[in-house]
């Protein structure tokens, strides 16, 4: 910090000032989760483990924590993996092949990306009920995957666009079919994109609230976000435990972000290095 020139010290102070509300929120979360009581941001009493008892016992008629935890893990992993698989294939086709309606398809995908998903909730509800997928994890997985696809397709198309045509021609002359070429040459070369998209979708699915909240009712199918919400909807909210669950829920995201931030940065720069 000593090396920072004075002008940048000012910038840093301004940035910290803007981040204060968020930082204090995070601080509140940790403190409230760890202590008996908290006045403002000042802990009262001793460090309290009782806020964390949801980890080893079912609290107030809720299912044990492993149920929403496992559900959330399945939900996130299936969604992110499907998004990566489907988007990479669709994007490759859009980027590399000419077929009738290609331009229209591209435009449609973009419109879908811009479309507010919340406005579709009622329609999706009817569709899921018709299909017998209402109140199932599979139903929500399908909906979430679909809503994530437009972004994934556009993102991956950007990565595939960077691949050299001559390399694909070389692969064909070497004796590859289009499918082998896709698997052995194109996919490995857009690996940074695949990892970025996978991390991004995983985080997005992990944090998803409105879809499970709308389409799931049985507590056996709850995800973590819904589990957390149940603490808020009580008449006398146990803020200590609410905060502890919040920390527990956020922890994987923080860890994953620290591991995956290198890939995520790729999304925003959008490049692929051969």
């Amino acid at each position, binding site marked *: 910090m000593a090396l920072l020139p004075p002008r940048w010290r000012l910038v840093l102070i301004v940035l910290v000032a803007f981040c204060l509300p968020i930082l204090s929120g995070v601080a509140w979360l940790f403190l409230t989760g760890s202590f008996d009581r908290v006045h403002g941001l000042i802990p009262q009493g001793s460090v309290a483990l009782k806020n964390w008892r949801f980890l080893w016992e079912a609290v107030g008629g809720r299912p044990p924590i492993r149920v929403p935890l496992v559900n959330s893990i399945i939900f996130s992993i299936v969604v992110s993996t499907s998004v990566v698989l489907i988007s990479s294939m669709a994007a490759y086709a859009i980027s590399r092949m000419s077929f009738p309606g290609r331009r229209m398809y591209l435009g449609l995908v973009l419109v879908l990306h811009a479309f507010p998903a919340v406005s579709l909730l009622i329609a999706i509800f009817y569709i899921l009920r018709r299909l017998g997928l209402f109140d199932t994890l599979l139903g929500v997985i399908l909906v979430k995957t679909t809503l994530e696809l437009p972004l994934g397709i556009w993102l991956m198309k950007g990565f595939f666009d960077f691949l*050299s045509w*001559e*390399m694909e*021609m*070389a*692969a*064909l*002359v*070497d*004796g*590859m*079919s289009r499918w*082998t070429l896709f698997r052995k*040459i194109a996919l*490995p*070369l857009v690996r940074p994109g695949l990892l970025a998209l996978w991390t991004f979708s995983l985080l997005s699915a992990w944090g998803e609230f409105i879809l499970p909240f709308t389409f799931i009712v049985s507590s056996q199918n709850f995800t973590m976000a819904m589990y957390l919400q149940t603490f808020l909807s009580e008449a006398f909210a146990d803020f200590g435990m609410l905060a502890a669950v919040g920390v527990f829920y956020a922890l994987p995201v923080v860890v994953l972000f620290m591991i995956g931030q290198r890939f995520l940065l790729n999304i925003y720069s959008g490049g692929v290095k*051969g």
Partner: protein
Amino acid sequence: MRGISVRLKALSKSFGKVVALKTLDLDVKAGELVAFLGPSGCGKTTTLLMIAGIYQPTGGEIYFGDRRIEHLHPRDRDVGMVFQSYALYPHLTLFENVAFPLRLKRTPNTEITEKVTQTAALLGIEHVLDRRPAQVSGGQQQRGALARALVKEPQVLLLDEPLSNLDAQIRVQARGEIRRLQQDLGVTSILVTHDQAEALAMADRVAVFSTGELQQFATPEELYRRPANVFVARFVGHPPMNLLDGEFANGQFAMGDVRIPVPRGHPEGPGSLGIRPEDANLDGEIPVRTVVLETLGRENLVTVRLGTADIRVLVDQSIRPKPGQAVRLGYKPDRVHFFDQGGTRIGL
């Protein structure tokens, strides 16, 4: 490795409304190296990619030997190809790059190792096989690409501007190496290039293309001595041929007020007269004025003005006329070229 003949019959290609290649008939003999020469957008690469099987022809037929192949997938054509960008797979080592075509053919591992090492040794890259393309020099990448094309012992070798990304010095060396290798292996080869020096130096025969049409298909000597039309005359040879537009009549070539006596065999009426800078001299009778002198080292290139036309003359390095100085232009009478109004060669 034995070559096979390649025959193109009424081959054509259009992209939508754009005609990339008008009807092309061309025969490449077994074991021959043929260069496709022309400026960018002339149809030479399009033709090559049709032979490789990347593009489907709009019309016409392609034969390898007696086998008609234009409908076959690239992998069933038995061709090796080197691209301008080399197009090596950046995520694989050079060894794996070269081994790739063999792996796709499910060649046993021991045979792969043997063949890759052998081919790499032939090209002098055996010591960098464990590196990735980005970790070796441009020249080594180029050899890697060549090794990948040759390792499967193709019947036809296609080279798309393989030297244009190399430094000038390595380029001259590489073109000699490729030529020697091609002759040793006897593989039928087609080289696409926009560099006339490269085409003349490497090829048995050169096909000159312009705007999707074959202009002339002949040996390098023939192209140089007897260009079929004005385009070839301008494109082949360096510095390029001087071409003067005017009118032929009674043993004279008239260009405005200037009259030049010309040898027999010229056409009558409007046309062009061509003379290469190396076939002109400053020991003649035609009075001209020096415009500029360029020192090339072994020779000097003098630009002189005749009427409204600039003519370039290659002279001995001891001859150094100053700009504005009057000199007398001459030429070897048996080395002049005549073209009619449409640009087609007339006479010998």
